[in-house]
């Protein structure tokens, strides 16, 4: 019994000790947890205080995906400058990597925790925009207050200014933009949504050191050759005598360009490693840039055979009619041949296997000095200049045209016009923003001429505002209004596009051929056969898709009508934007239906005339209009 009670006592003591131990352990755990919580709360509080989130001041959150070059620092600079004129508003920049961007903003938009200003793509994100963004139509016809005399800027001696530098005081915000904010107009939603900050063009970037070594020309001579403005040009521009883009150098031709490429190859051979340096950093993306440019130039001459209604472009039905009736014989047409042969020759200047390479590899090749040139958009300029640093000098020039001695002289005569170019890096105003007025005010500030040119100077991009200056090395990015536009595509729908792309990649990707003529002939005959088999059914698919688009336009027209009903006014008392939208949408859907039926009628006529088979001989009569 005694032994039993002793055992029980010992067990009880052991249990008590264990309990005590557990209690102590729990207390320690709780204390650690409490300290951790307090520490976290303190950190959050301090950071929030630093960012102003705890103050009464409104905070504008500004999210974007432009992490290239010095963009983030440049925006931070603008925020600091804004604080000086608006100390009662805080602005918080949120840079988000491009790959995660869409998912990141979607989550926040759905949760209604999105920033006030978000970079958007007005042309592709319509489903998101309609739900979560505020149209800015009501703001854009009022002047930007930061363009007034009080904020008017002095010219920056480091920048080059265009001739056309109007006074922007009192000018409606929309008209202060070089593109009149056309890039912000979302047609399906019939309103403006984006507040853009920069304009982007596509040019050739070249490694001046490498080109100098390969060609034996000094950098000064090279600049003169490719048309980079000299100090004299810039001086003239500063005095208002030219736009600072230099003489344009029409004598820098495709032949010079190819000769330069050969010299680069020779340099690589001289260094004992043929593959160590290539003339152009290539990838599928870069190849498309060259294709878009030179195809449009070469195809311009096809317009008279295509454009039945003289509207300056070719519809799907017009292209089908031209090819099926033999008016445009793909196998023998000189423009089609020239475009493809030129692209084949350009592709030979790329690194081998370019078709399987991505854009990052081309940037890597160029910045590492392993490729002498790269064709890309000005949005890449900050990155390229940033990575290259002082390693070598970069020249920027436009795509060369054919000189009179060139085999392409007849076809590559005019550049593509950049007159209608639309501004990018557009910020959208979110619907659930609680500080809309402050957010718009901040955008006014960023897009005032003084700030916009200083921001873009730091971005190394081209400013979106009229008359803003730009850094000298980027003057060749200035949009060129002189030129032609797109009139022809090799496909008429998704099936013909797929077949064409497959055949085209095979065509330009083949390294070793016996003769370019024979190689082209084989490619184009194969494609024309496929075109003959697929084009009419491809058209029919598009015909149905166009009906869907018309019904979608009706949805928008109904939305405009709904607002007319709500306004309960006559047309002459309606808000101008609403009136314009109603007319535009109603006329748009009705006109689109007529056009669609006319295209169908034209294709039916072609089908009857040709039996659905491509005719090889051009019709004897010069005109073959419906």
């Amino acid at each position, binding site marked *: 019994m005694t032994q039993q009670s002793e055992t029980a006592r010992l067990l009880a003591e052991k249990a008590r000790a264990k309990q005590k131990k557990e209690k102590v352990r729990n207390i320690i755990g709780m204390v650690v947890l409490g300290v951790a919580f307090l520490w976290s709360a303190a950190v959050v509080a301090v950071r929030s205080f630093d960012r102003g989130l705890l103050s009464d001041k409104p905070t504008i959150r500004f999210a974007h995906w432009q992490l290239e070059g010095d963009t983030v620092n440049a925006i931070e600079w603008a925020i600091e400058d804004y604080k000086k004129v608006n100390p009662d508003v805080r602005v918080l920049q949120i840079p988000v990597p491009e790959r995660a961007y869409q998912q990141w903003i979607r989550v926040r938009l759905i949760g209604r925790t999105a920033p006030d200003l978000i970079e958007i793509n007005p042309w592709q994100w319509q489903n998101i925009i309609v739900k979560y963004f505020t149209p800015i139509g009501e703001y854009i016809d009022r002047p930007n207050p930061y363009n007034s005399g009080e904020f008017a800027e002095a010219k920056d001696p480091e920048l080059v200014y265009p001739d056309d530098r109007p006074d922007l005081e009192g000018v409606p915000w929309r008209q202060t933009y070089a593109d009149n904010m056309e890039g912000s107009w979302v047609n399906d939603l019939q309103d403006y949504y984006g507040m853009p900050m920069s304009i982007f063009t596509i040019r050739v970037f070249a490694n001046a050191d490498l080109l100098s070594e390969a060609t034996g020309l000094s950098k000064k001579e090279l600049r003169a050759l490719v048309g980079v403005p000299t100090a004299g040009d810039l001086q003239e521009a500063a005095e208002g005598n030219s736009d600072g883009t230099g003489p344009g150098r029409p004598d820098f031709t495709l032949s010079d360009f190819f000769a330069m490429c050969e010299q680069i190859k020779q340099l690589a051979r001289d260094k004992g490693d043929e593959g160590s340096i290539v003339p152009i950093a290539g990838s599928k993306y870069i190849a498309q840039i060259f294709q878009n440019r030179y195809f449009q130039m070469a195809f311009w001459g096809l*317009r*008279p055979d295509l454009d039945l209604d003289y509207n300056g472009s070719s519809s799907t039905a017009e292209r089908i009619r031209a090819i099926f009736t033999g008016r445009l014989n793909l196998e023998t047409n000189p423009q089609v041949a020239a475009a493809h042969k030129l692209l084949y020759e350009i592709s030979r200047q790329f690194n081998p296997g370019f078709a399987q390479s991505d854009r990052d590899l081309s940037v890597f090749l160029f910045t590492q000095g392993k490729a002498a040139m790269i064709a890309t958009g000005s949005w890449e300029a900050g990155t390229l200049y940033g990575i290259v640093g002082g390693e070598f000098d970069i020249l920027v020039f436009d795509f060369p045209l054919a000189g009179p001695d060139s085999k392409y002289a007849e076809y590559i005569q005019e550049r593509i016009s950049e007159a209608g170019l639309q501004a990018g890096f557009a910020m959208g105003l979110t619907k659930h923003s609680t500080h809309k007025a402050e957010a718009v005010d901040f955008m006014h500030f960023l897009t005032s001429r003084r700030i916009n040119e200083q921001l873009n100077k730091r971005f190394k991009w081209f400013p979106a505002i009229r008359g803003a200056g730009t850094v000298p090395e980027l003057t060749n990015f200035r949009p060129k209004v002189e030129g032609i536009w797109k009139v022809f595509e090799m496909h008429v729908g998704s099936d013909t596009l797929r077949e064409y792309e497959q055949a085209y990649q095979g065509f330009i990707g083949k390294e070793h051929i016996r003769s370019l003529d024979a190689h082209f002939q084989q490619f184009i005959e194969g494609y024309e056969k496929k075109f003959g088999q697929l084009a009419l059914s491809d058209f029919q698919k598009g015909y149905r898709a166009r009906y869907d688009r*018309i019904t979608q336009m009706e949805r928008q027209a109904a939305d405009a009508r709904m607002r007319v009903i709500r306004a309960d006014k006559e047309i002459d008392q309606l808000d101008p934007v609403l009136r314009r939208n109603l007319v535009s949408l109603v006329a748009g*859907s009705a006109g689109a239906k007529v056009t669609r039926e006319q295209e169908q009628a034209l294709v039916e006529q072609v089908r009857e005339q040709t039996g659905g088979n491509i005719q090889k001989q051009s019709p004897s009569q010069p005109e073959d209009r419906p």
Partner: protein
Amino acid sequence: MTSLPSRFQNWRWLVLAGASLLAAATGCSAKDDALPDVPPADALEEGWELIRVANFEDAERYLRRALEAEEPETLAEACYAMGHLWQYRIMDEDLAQARQYYQRVVDEFPTSRTAAWAMLALARMESLPKTEKDQDIDQARQMYQQIIEDYPGQIPAHEAAYRYAHTFLEQAQDLEAQQEGIDYLLDYIQKYPETYLAAVMFYDIAGVYTFQKQWTKAVDFYIRADEKDQQFEQRFGDRTLSFNRRSVMYFQIAQIAEHELKNYDLAIKWYRRIVNDLDRDNRQYWARKSIERLTGAQQEPSDADDGSRS
């Protein structure tokens, strides 16, 4: 201290946990069907706003509340809004319901300000249904005509007239039908010269003549469209033809004048309009080149220009 699983062996905890789960599940799954507690007119207002941002679920709740309105205008508009909601509810349209609501406006509130719009919506459902197979053009035409007769000179009547004519213009293979549409539009413009759709009506007539290769008439109507558009701008301070439409139209006039009518003065005049009026249009450069070419060779125009037909 007992471990967590042993706690759950305790029935009281189990009951509490079960109750919480049940409450959570009920709360999560419960659909908030209650109608908003706001006056019907306010509910209608909010319902429209929600349709605009494509929040159809909440819009429906608000419009159901608006349907309880006693005031006839509000009730008629609530019916119209419901029709609109069901017609354009993305991924979940119910055209039969839409039709019923529109019809209710027409039948029960024929004098309301929404009635003409409801009739227009019904007519449009006949002439442009989800699939072309369901199209009933005759029925649509009758309804358009009814609107034109019942609401002369009003906004929905102008739109009905435009749509009515288009049911003929769309028949691209039938010249007579197209002419009927053109005649109808011309009569209508004569009757209502101030209609805000006059410029686009002339523009569409010109488009039909372009397709028919009646070049003189095409150019004439494009010019009339521009004149009407300018008159509209003088009255209201803005154009009815979009920038894009105008730039294409000016280019067409100049090109047809040059290549078909061989009227080089007219061509130069319209190339100049592109240069002077259409700032930042990419046709400006080509227009300037054409002026230079035509001015230099006006005595003996060259056919070597790229616009000539092979």
